[in-house]
């Protein structure tokens, strides 16, 4: 690599990293507890468990009528309206219901209802309690809403630039060294340079994937808006002059209709009229498969909330499929306990890479100034090859 291109790549690596490092440290630190949000919820007593059924019902648990499930939840907040109800594949005994003052209420009330008896189980802590909620908000948008999300997305793009330029710089630094060399004995700076290179190259693909999928996730709101204004708008075109709903059709019947239309699929969640996943006149019943991969792919069935008939159903557009598939790759929640653990270790390794990068920059800046002072007054400093400055000669 020529000295000139080395300088150029060093410059890119330095500035792309410096700009995003503080935010990446924030994301790594807040992401760590989020990896274990289920376990932390359990420790804090914030997780929801379905009560045991009477012995005579256990063998063949009943399925409560969904309209009764909704009625139980609404009895707690008679003035609020339904926003969503959803079910986890591995917890069919619980319906997670959210109620709000309006369909886009950010301060919604989560309510867990027994899917077998239609009795309210509990009102779970909002977003898993104050601590987890703070971690989540810091991680997603730094409490700054959509601009915050998009800003973090831009920082994620810089991280990708930093990773790619770091790989380019790996070659000149490591050419003369065996893989994994860490020179403990020379100087602290050299040791951390080697650790930076080692952990950087080891976490490379993981960091790229988590970074890129994180960037995709920051576009979630934007992608949903695009979908609403194109596909949903087309599906509800016949309803554009319809009068507001006065009486809502049975949700239980609507879901049965959707399940009959998509045999072999399960209900993932139901979006109620007015929410971003439905229309003012429709229930959005989102069906998904029950296998590892197909459970990530949703198929919306729009049901007329006035008369309970199917208005339209289509495949999700590619960009929402991409969003849904990118989410597990960001969260690391799809491979069990070992994957969570490895995700946490890789997260910590990334913190070390970020921290050592910052340390190397500070050290190098100091040394460059010291050298400048030394050379001042002597002969004009020859342009030193970058590698001689950053390599192992001292």
């Amino acid at each position, binding site marked *: 690599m020529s000295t000139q291109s080395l300088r150029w790549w060093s410059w890119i690596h330095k500035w792309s990293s410096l700009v995003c490092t503080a935010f990446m440290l924030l994301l790594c630190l807040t992401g760590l507890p989020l990896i274990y949000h289920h376990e932390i919820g359990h420790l804090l007593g914030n997780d929801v468990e379905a009560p045991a059924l009477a012995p005579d019902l256990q063998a063949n648990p009943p399925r409560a009528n969904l309209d009764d499930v909704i009625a139980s939840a609404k009895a707690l907040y008679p003035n609020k309206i339904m926003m969503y109800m959803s079910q986890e594949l591995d917890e069919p005994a619980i319906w997670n219901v959210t109620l709000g003052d309006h369909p886009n209420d950010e301060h919604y009330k989560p309510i867990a209802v027994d899917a077998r008896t239609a009795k309210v189980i509990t009102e779970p802590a909002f977003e898993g309690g104050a601590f987890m909620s703070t971690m989540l908000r810091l991680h997603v948008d730094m409490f700054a809403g959509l601009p915050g999300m998009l800003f973090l997305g831009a920082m994620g793009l810089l991280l990708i630039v930093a990773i790619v330029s770091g790989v380019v710089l790996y070659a000149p630094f490591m050419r003369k060294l065996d893989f994994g060399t860490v020179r403990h004995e020379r100087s602290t700076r050299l040791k951390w340079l080697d650790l930076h290179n*080692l952990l950087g190259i080891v976490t490379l693909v*993981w960091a790229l994937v988590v970074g890129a999928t994180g960037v995709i996730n920051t576009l979630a709101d934007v992608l949903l808006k695009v979908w609403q204004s194109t596909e949903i708008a087309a599906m509800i075109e016949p309803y554009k002059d319809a009068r507001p709903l006065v009486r809502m059709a049975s949700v239980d019947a609507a879901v049965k209709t959707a399940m009959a239309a998509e045999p072999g699929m399960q209900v993932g969640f139901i979006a109620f009229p007015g929410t971003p996943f439905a229309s003012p006149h429709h229930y959005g019943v989102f069906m998904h498969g029950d296998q590892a991969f197909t459970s990530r792919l949703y198929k919306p069935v729009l049901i007329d909330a006035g008369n309970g008939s199917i208005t339209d159903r289509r495949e999700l557009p590619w960009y929402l499929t991409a969003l849904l598939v990118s989410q597990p790759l960001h969260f690391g929640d799809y491979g069990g306990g*070992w994957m969570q653990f490895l995700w946490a270790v890789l997260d910590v*390794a990334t913190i070390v890479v970020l921290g050592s990068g910052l340390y190397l920059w500070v050290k190098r800046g100091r040394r460059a100034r010291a050298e400048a002072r030394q050379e001042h007054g002597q002969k004009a400093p020859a342009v030193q090859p970058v590698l001689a400055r950053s390599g192992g000669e001292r």
Partner: protein
Amino acid sequence: MSSPFMKLWGMPILLGILTVIGLLSALFGDGVWDALSAVTLGVPVAVGAWFSLRRKRH
């Protein structure tokens, strides 16, 4: 591993391929696929830990 290119990039490429297998396998299945994912993702983590924590004896 004899060519200069493979000496430099052999290990990073191997670890990168293992990471990709680890990330994808758990996505497409459970059980055995999760185990494969744990092993293939575990190798880069183990390699990183081994080389950063070991100290050469003089």
